C-alpha cells in the first residue's frame, strides 16, 4: 500500500486532453477523494479548461491502471488514472 503522499498519475486523451491543456500530471490525492467520480469533481472545480473538459460527465470514459473502469471505481495513491472520450478506433 502506497503512502497517502504518493501521487496518482492522471492522463488525458483526445478532446479531453485538448480542453485540459496537458496530457499528463501528478497529483497527491486529498483524503476525501476515494473514487474516479470524486476525482472528476475535484478536477472540475479547478475551472477553466478542466471545467470545460468534465462538463458532460456522461460522455467521459476512464481507466484505472490501464483497465477500463466505471466512475464509481476506487482509486488509491500510486494509481494511473486516464480520462478519455468513447473510443473510435478500428
Amino acid at each position: 500500500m502506497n503512502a497517502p503522499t504518493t501521487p496518482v498519475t492522471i492522463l488525458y486523451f483526445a478532446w479531453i486532453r485538448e480542453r485540459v491543456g496537458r496530457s499528463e500530471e501528478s497529483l497527491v490525492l486529498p483524503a476525501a477523494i476515494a473514487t474516479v467520480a470524486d476525482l472528476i469533481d475535484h478536477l472540475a472545480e479547478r475551472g477553466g479548461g478542466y471545467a470545460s473538459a468534465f462538463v458532460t460527465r456522461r460522455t467521459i470514459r476512464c481507466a484505472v491502471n490501464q483497465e477500463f473502469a466505471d466512475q464509481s471505481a476506487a482509486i488509491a495513491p500510486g494509481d494511473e488514472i486516464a480520462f478519455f472520450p468513447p473510443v473510435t478506433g478500428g
Partner: protein
Amino acid sequence: MATIKVQTEDFDVSREIAALTAGRSDIGGIGCFVGVVRERAGADQAPEPVAAMTLEHYPGMTERAIARIAEQAEQRFDILGCTVIHRVGTLRTGDNIVLVLAVSAHRQPALDATAFLIDWLKTKAPFWKREEFADGSGAWVDAREADDAAAERWSRDG
C-alpha cells in the same frame, strides 16, 4: 500466439498472411479485414471531404486491451492464430488503418473471429480518431451507436 502491433508505418497484407501461415499445414482458411481511411468518415455528416485523419492511442493500455480481445477470440472460436495491426499517427484518404487476420482449419471460425476482432477493437481498445479538413479545421470523431450494437452481438460474458 496472437501477433499484435501498434505502429505508425503501413503494413503489407500479403507479408502478414505469409508470416501467420508460415510452416503450417493445418490451416484451411484465412479471414482478413482491412480498414482504410474514407473520404467521408465519422457519421457521414461531415460537410466536406476529410484531408487527413490522426489516430491517438493510450500506449501501454492499447497493447493490453488488444491482447485481451485476441485472447477472447482464441477462446470463443476454433482458430489457429490471429494478427492485429493498428496504425496510429496521421493518415491520408485511402491509407490503411487496421488489419485483422484469423486462420482456422475451416472457414467459419476464421470469418467469425475476424468479425469479432474488428467489432471489439472498435469499442474496446483505446484509440481516438480526429478528422482534419482541407481548410485546416478538424473534429474528433464521435463514437457510433452502430459500433456498440455490432460489439454487443458478441456479448456473452463481456
